[in-house]
């Protein structure tokens, strides 16, 4: 029962952070929210008994993808549709 509570919480966090990615106009904040999303989905993999996938999502999704997104934001522009 209690693991369903954890499930529910993690999934609520997942959907909330995905909505934040949709909502933020500041691309850096959106990339941060995507990093947050990666963390949560990695936690969800962990709860679903897939530690291999959790490690790989933690290393690749949360670490490197955020990094290359930030490099790309640096190389292009930070705000969606020009300066706020």
């Amino acid at each position, binding site marked *: 029962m*209690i*693991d369903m*509570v*954890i499930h529910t*919480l*993690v999934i*609520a*966090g997942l959907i*909330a*952070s995905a909505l*934040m990615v949709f909502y933020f106009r*500041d691309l*850096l*904040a959106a990339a*941060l*929210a995507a*990093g*947050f999303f990666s*963390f*949560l989905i*990695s*936690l969800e993999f*962990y*709860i679903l*008994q897939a*530690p291999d996938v*959790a*490690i790989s999502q*933690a*290393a690749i999704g*949360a*670490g490197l993808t*955020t*990094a290359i997104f*930030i*490099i790309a*934001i*640096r190389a292009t522009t930070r705000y969606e549709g020009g300066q706020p």
Partner: protein
Amino acid sequence: MIDPWYIAVCILVILVCLALIRLFLGPTAADRAVAVDTVNTLSVAALVLLGVAYQQIIFIDVAIVYALLSFVSTLYIAKYLGGEL
């Protein structure tokens, strides 16, 4: 009786969801970075506790990977914020 590990994990996940509020509100990007950094720390704690709760000793490796690597993305954000990237 419910396993205390599960309750602890539950509380930690609730805290993670609370940190989401700061991620949403945070007026500057630095606030959001702090929120993400906090979540990293809490996640590591949660992962360690979950590993014990599942009686799976090898799961702790995931927590170490988290602890070592989450910090790199924080550094990228900090470097970008400081205009040094």
